[in-house]
């Protein structure tokens, strides 16, 4: 066993850290917040592309950096720690790009991949529907052949960045009579296509990140299908060798914990620093322990991938652990801030610029998005422990 990084890896971390320290400043965060783009920045995405870090995980022949899994892990950890915005590229780099590399035709690869690696196009994901959340395979959006086109009708929801995206990768049913998983196809859709309308869904932080997307007779050229017709479900399940550790969550939590530790040291309540209160000490220490356990659980995923092993349940465990952890951290942070906790940025009394209040509210979405905690536990139980599946009607 060896829990250390090589000298070369440490040098890389220092380089990334120095860049992010310079770019992801308090002023930068403030500017994004004022623009309503907390999680999103096209400029930042482009800067990462210029550094050669955006597609560092991709194979070199597709414009990637061919980075090792350990380098990817380090990069993600630093991005998470700095709370850097990834909304401008997450979909393109982590999801559609890798799917294109595996399932795309040569033409599709030529057409779409360079724009993704350059950080020039923003993708959104058209998967979830009002009646297809955790049970995604029950999706009803329909695509019907019409000459050289498919005509798509239906509704998508929770579509993050749909109002900013240039393209959408979307699942639609192409064979309503086939078994659920075998009648779905994968489409690449220009968001400027006639028939697409985007309606904002404002989240509980009053932020406009996701949307409802309505598709009304949207005509998509046949060459924009990714993979074979009716094989879209399986295309969507592509797990490529990009890093799936979930390290950004405990790394971001570590940063917030450090801020809370500083706050507790500097803030007096009832005449004594909060840091001397045994309950506060206990709570912060508990979070430090949880974050370290989370870091190990995440490292394991990356290490397995580094070894060429395919994580079975380990990535689900990391996602489950991390998203549950930031809920506890948000909660504990608010308790420590007391009456000041609910104050939002903009108020001169708001501690840590309202960051904890945001993190606390934001954490509620983590255990729902990208597979709820319950779904993660089902995966851990059935794949990790081989417990029998629940019979489905």
């Amino acid at each position, binding site marked *: *066993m*060896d*829990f*250390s*990084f090589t000298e070369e890896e440490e040098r890389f971390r220092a380089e990334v850290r120095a860049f992010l320290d310079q770019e992801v400043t308090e002023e930068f965060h403030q500017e994004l917040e004022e623009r309503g783009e907390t999680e999103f920045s096209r400029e930042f995405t482009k800067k990462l592309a210029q550094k050669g870090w955006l597609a560092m995980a991709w194979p070199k022949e597709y414009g990637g950096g061919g980075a090792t899994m*350990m380098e990817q892990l380090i990069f993600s950890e630093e991005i998470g720690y700095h709370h850097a915005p990834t909304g401008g590229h997450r979909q393109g780099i982590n999801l559609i790009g890798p799917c294109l590399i595996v399932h795309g035709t040569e033409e599709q690869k030529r057409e779409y991949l360079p724009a993704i690696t350059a950080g020039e196009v923003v993708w959104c994901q058209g998967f979830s529907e009002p009646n297809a959340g955790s049970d995604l395979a029950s999706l009803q959006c329909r695509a019907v052949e019409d000459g050289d086109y498919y005509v798509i009708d239906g509704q998508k929801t929770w579509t993050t960045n749909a109002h900013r995206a240039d393209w959408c990768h979307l699942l639609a049913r192409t064979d309503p009579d086939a078994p659920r998983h075998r009648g779905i196809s994968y489409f690449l859709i220009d968001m400027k296509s006639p028939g697409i309308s985007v309606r904002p869904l404002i989240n509980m932080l009053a932020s406009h990140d996701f949307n409802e997307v309505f598709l009304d007779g949207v005509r998509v050229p046949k060459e924009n299908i990714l993979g074979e017709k009716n094989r879209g479900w399986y295309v969507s399940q592509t797990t490529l060798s990009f890093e799936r550790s979930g390290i950004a969550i405990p790394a971001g939590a570590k940063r917030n914990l450090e801020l809370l*530790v500083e706050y*507790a*040291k500097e803030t007096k309540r009832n005449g004594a620093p909060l*840091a001397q209160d*045994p309950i*506060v*000490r*206990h709570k*912060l*220490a*508990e979070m*430090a*322990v*949880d974050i*370290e*356990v989370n870091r*190990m*659980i995440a*490292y*394991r995923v990356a*290490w*397995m991938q*580094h*070894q060429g092993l395919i994580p079975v*349940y*380990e990535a689900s*465990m990391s996602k*489950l*652990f991390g998203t549950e952890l930031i809920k506890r951290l948000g909660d504990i942070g608010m308790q420590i801030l007391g009456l000041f906790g609910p104050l939002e940025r903009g108020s001169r009394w708001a501690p840590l610029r309202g960051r904890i209040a945001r993190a606390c509210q934001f954490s509620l979405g983590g255990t729902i998005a990208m597979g709820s905690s*319950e779904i*993660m*536990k*089902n995966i*851990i*139980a*059935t794949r*990790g*422990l*081989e*417990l*029998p*599946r*629940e*019979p489905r009607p």
Partner: protein
Amino acid sequence: MDLGFSEEQEMLRTTARDFLDNECPKSLVKEMAEDEKGYTTELWKEMAELGWMGLTIPEEYDGMGMTFLDLVILLEEMGRACLPGPFFSTVVLGGYTILEAGSEEQKKELLPKISAGDLILTLALTEPSGSYEPDAITVKATPKNGEYVISGTKLFVPDANVADYLICVARTKEGASPEDGITLFLVDAKGPGITTTLLKTIAGDKQCEVVFEDVKVPKGNILGELDKGWGVVEKVLAKATVALCAQMVGGAQAALEMSVNYAKERVQFGRPIGSFQAIQHYCANMLTDVDGSKFITYEAAWKISEGLPATMEVSMAKAWVSEAYRRVTLLGHQIHGGIGFCMDHDMPLYFKRSKAAEPTFGDADFHREMVAKQLGL
């Protein structure tokens, strides 16, 4: 980074598991819980022949010269098997204290005997205050006629009933700080003035009260420097804490496997209870706790093995594993239903051990306070 074990380490695990499956069935564990001595000489000798007692003792003292991380693997398997007996006391508490503090002469005298399985040791540290802090050391050692005379009561001393020597942590001076003035003495456990009483515990482990009444100890039996013993205790405690975590990890893994197997077999409402989401989610929680316990323990063990500072990691491991083991055994009992509540079942072995291990070397609250200090709070 390498989060896997080497081939040799995997082999050590397999050997240990096979051996303990055969030689340490749960029937023996239960028998030994009732037994006055708490272990069998046969099993002890066989373990010595496998080289286990000298696993991390350097080769020059007839040991195998392996690392602390290797020992952690062995301890995990012992925790899984609920191995009874004075292995932990002798090898971890005794062996590492001698390695850390003993003179060359003492090492040459004692370590080969430990390796051979000819010596049983333990550490007499805690007292009726039940604290691991240096100010809790009140048992006095007073110089008299060229030797020391020890008086006072040690409590929760593991395996003192079968030990050949006790390493007694005694106060030789009221120093400027509580750490100052503590000295380690190697004391003949059967010598005059020592009264050892076995405590009745829920886990059937052999914890003792040891009363010292004017026990005479030659000067030459001091381990390490006079008055400077606390530093040694801290180093040994760090190893012992992680070693205990390893045993707990093994126990938690066993409780998890037992519960998952039961959930696959037990049928209610016409299907295995493991197909119900409530049970699946319990099992997922258990696996998460067990996996987390493993890596937080391995990280601390690796740091110790490499000689790196590990104060934070040791405390994080014990804080986490203490509670995780408890959560795992509690959920395991819930999954087993009524049958797990029976004396004859194996589940209570793990629950009881989790309760015994929780406060040992400091509970989760104690170690969270350590973490708080490390965080700069």
